[in-house]
């Protein structure tokens, strides 16, 4: 039985509603629950689910739709009550302070504001971002689905006005030590970061923190900034601003491989800065050092070299932080008891860049690893949810996040995929990343330990053994605490490595022992 309610003129943020959806679906005897705004897309979705009616069809993007399907009238009542109480939670918090209804009104309330952070639907970003720039605000756009032409236009406008434009699809930045969107709590220090990769920036800044140093600023640019068409506008402005920043003594630049022209101008800008710099192009062949500019083979190495350049701990270019003997011991233990059918590695990643980094470590040595983010089409998964031999999946892929928050927030995405991997019966090793910090799930390790324990038990029941290798991007200053999260994972038998690249290297060594 179904119940469909349309509430006129009741706007809620879509991510907020997704979280409500998740909770409502857990109500007993509820088979389907959609709490969404009446956008074209959502109305089509409901129609496809056979959960539409005349009210739904005439709903607008400002109208809230609650569509429930359940077994009993009682269940529907319960779910409906749950929706309202969850929605009310929001409205109560919103009563606490005055909320201006538009950017223009907000500027009047807080005239000294200097940055606008946008996490609104991509189609509306261009308009609000332009208004922010017109009012002299620096801008960070968390939203994705912003048309490329808009990005180019906005960045040119920002450049003309000398304003910083981070994003779109910029998941993280740290300005003056304050976290913007998804970001870790990192010590202040002498290293300035420019990054065209969200999880890359998080891993890099956390590694700098772990190595005992800190950062001045961490500027995100959004992944498309380094495309030929955009020309690295934000990256170049970021480098120049860090060059002019007295607090910054070392510049660290990371990105997926940029367009050649962007590489050239970025390197030129770093040379012009007169400051030592360390660069890592994730997934690209390592370049030769050029004068003051060093190139790093991984995110962690990039951090380590930056710390050395800033006068901190010396860079140690070894594969592991642990001794060879210790590593050999772990490899022996973890590879001792695989069952006959257990042959493959499965990497389930929340961080896209981290998935790519792991892929790069293993691709050649394992004679090919399949992935939904593989640069080589021959190894790209036809269906990102279906693994094949050695597989690394970026769970941040659109396939997994339609109508759901990112797996860094919604941990059930990874738990569901793990169940799938278990059913295939051929998984020997599970490789995981955990990303802490503001914006992320409040206890990502804790939310996964039951699934990990169950998976390891299933392997043991089958007469085999499941090796689980993990790394945690985070610091002890983060709300989740790095130490606590690591301990939680170790307690259920995970091997927790100090960095993503070390976790990948260890996983490779173990997999090489599988016949």
């Amino acid at each position, binding site marked *: 039985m179904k119940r469909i309610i349309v509430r006129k003129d009741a706007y809620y943020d879509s991510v907020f509603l997704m979280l409500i959806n998740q909770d409502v679906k857990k109500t007993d005897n509820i088979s389907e629950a959609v709490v969404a705004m009446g956008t074209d897309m959502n109305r089509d979705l409901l129609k496809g689910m056979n959960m539409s009616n005349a009210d739904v069809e005439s709903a607008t993007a*400002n109208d809230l739709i609650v569509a429930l399907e359940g077994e009993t009238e009682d269940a529907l009542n319960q779910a409906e009550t749950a929706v309202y109480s969850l929605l009310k939670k929001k409205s109560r918090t919103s009563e606490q302070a005055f909320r201006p209804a538009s950017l223009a009104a907000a500027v009047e309330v807080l005239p*000294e504001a200097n940055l606008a952070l946008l996490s609104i639907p991509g189609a509306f970003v261009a308009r609000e971002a332009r208004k922010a720039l017109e009012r*002299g605000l620096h801008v960070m756009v968390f939203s994705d689905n912003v048309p490329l032409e808009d990005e180019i236009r906005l960045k040119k406008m920002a450049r003309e006005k*000398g304003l*910083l434009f981070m994003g779109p699809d910029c998941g993280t930045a740290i*300005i003056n030590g304050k976290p913007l969107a998804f970001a870790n709590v990192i010590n202040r220090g002498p290293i300035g970061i420019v990054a065209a990769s969200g999880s890359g920036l998080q891993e890099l800044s956390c590694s700098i923190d772990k190595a005992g140093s800190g950062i001045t600023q961490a500027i995100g640019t959004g992944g498309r900034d380094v495309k030929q068409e955009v020309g690295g506008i934000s990256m170049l402005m970021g480098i*120049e601003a860090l060059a002019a920043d007295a607090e910054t003594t070392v510049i660290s630049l990371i990105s997926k491989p940029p367009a050649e022209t962007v590489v050239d101008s970025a390197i030129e800008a770093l040379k012009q800065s007169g400051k030592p710099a360390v660069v890592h192009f994730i997934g690209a062949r390592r370049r030769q050092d050029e004068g003051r500019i060093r190139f790093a083979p991984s995110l962690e190495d990039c951090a380590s070299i930056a710390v050395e350049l800033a006068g901190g701990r010396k860079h140690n270019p070894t594969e592991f932080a642990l001794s060879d003997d210790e590593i050999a011991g772990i490899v022996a233990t973890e590879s001792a008891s695989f069952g006959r059918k257990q042959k493959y590695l499965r990497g389930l990643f929340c961080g896209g860049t981290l998935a790519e980094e792991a892929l790069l470590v293993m691709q050649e040595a394992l004679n090919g690893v399949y992935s939904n983010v593989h640069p080589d089409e021959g190894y790209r998964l036809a269906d990102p949810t279906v693994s094949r031999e050695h597989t690394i999946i970026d769970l941040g892929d659109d396939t997994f996040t339609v109508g759901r928050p990112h797996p860094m927030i919604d941990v059930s995405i990874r738990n569901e995929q793990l169940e799938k991997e278990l059913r295939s019966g051929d998984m020997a090793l599970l490789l995981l990343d955990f990303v802490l910090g503001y*914006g992320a799930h409040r206890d990502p390790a804790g939310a996964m330990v039951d699934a990990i324990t169950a998976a390891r038990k299933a392997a043991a029941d089958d007469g085999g053994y499941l090796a689980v290798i993990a790394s945690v991007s985070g610091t002890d200053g983060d709300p989740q605490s790095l130490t606590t999260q690591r301990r939680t994972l170790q307690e259920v038998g995970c091997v927790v490595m100090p960095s993503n690249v070390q976790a990948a290297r260890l996983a490779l060594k173990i997999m090489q022992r599988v016949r």
Partner: protein
Amino acid sequence: MSVAKINQLFSGELKVLNLGLEEFSASLQREGAEALQVDWKPPAGGDRHMVQLLERVESNSALKRDQANDQAVERLMKSKPTLIDIGIACDVVPGMHKKLVLHSGPPVTWDKMAGPVRGAVIGGLIYEGLAKGPTEAEELAASGDIEYAPCHHHDAVGPMAGIMTSSMPVWIMKNETFGNTAYCTLNEGLGKVLRYGANSDDVIKRLKWMGDVLSPVLKQALEMHGPIDMKNLIAQVLQMGDEGHNRNRAGTSLLIREMAPYLVMLDRSKQELSEVLKFMHTNDHFFLNLTMPACKAAVDAARNIDGSSMIVAMARNGTDFGIRVSGLGDQWFTGPASRVDGLYLPGYSEADAARDVGDSVITETGGIGGFAMAAAPAIVKFVGGTPQDALNFTRRMYDITLRENDTYQIPALDFRGTPTGIDLFKIIETGVLPAINTGIAHKDPGVGMVGAGLVKPPVKCFHDAFEAYAERYGTKP
């Protein structure tokens, strides 16, 4: 390329405006940064086409919309509507003649007129002696011999059906600042009255009495009193619980107070003077026919300002709801008149209601009426709510207006000025429609008022108007 501003950001304190996920504000606040959460909604209710039009208007750097709107709203607020006299329509209303019938709202032809408007036209023709009875009047009305025009086209406004014919007495409201004038008939009272489409003998008889007794008496008293500053009077009534559209009890009382000392001086029988005073006293809406031309005179001063997106007329004729925009000249943009959401007098229900009708929404256009709802908590029951709802109604209207009024103030909002100067651009951008208080007429001619409430104007007229505005003032697509 200069990055000096970015370095300023690095050396100062981060202060963030957050549009979207609230959690991001919370994180920043927890780490000691100032973050203001914006209650953001998709512009134009998520209507892509309207957003494109907004962009076209915004991207025209040659258009000085803000200056044009400043000019428009300043003219509206600097206006000083003053009641100077009572005259006969054909003598004073421009273009008025024997066979012209003025009605409320945008233009409408006889065949499309709503029931109450037709009934009032019939009554008007009988009153003028152009027809002996309703049947003859109806034939004449449909014959093509009678010319129809909106009051608005003749510097006038009329409540409900808004019928004005050549020999009716009218208030003369002069805008002392800009010299323009507005006209409105005298209010007939409640119940079976012409403006609700009634045209029976007693209705005509009352109209005759108004022409023969009421208006000459008031005209004489007004001459002795001298011109009445309406702006001042309206400012007072807002502090006495009126909003100037659906509640006019304080205004009517004040008018009686102004006139009484002079009425008693007139060389008229006690009987007549008593009838005049009683007529005003028993009709709380007597003052409405003064707030309306006062607002009309003020808003007219803001018409035809190139580039201005300020709305300078809203009016309904029972068939269509129409608006005019300062920067778009005389053109009306219309949509079907809505049903009123309101409370009904005992014995009536929504099934009896005519659609929204009347020029009285000129009061909202001028910054009172529904926009000053917070001043009139006594009538919040019309909107089915609490005094808090009344406050919120007014608060919401600040989102779509250009200024806070410098004279009309609301005590309950700490004497904040009423939201004044409705901006079409802001209506489109926010999706917020003007809040309009109104009376409800019976759908059949001659029955009268059946209730009062709140009406939402049709969104179509605003969309059409903005389409035309963007076409004229926006960049090419």
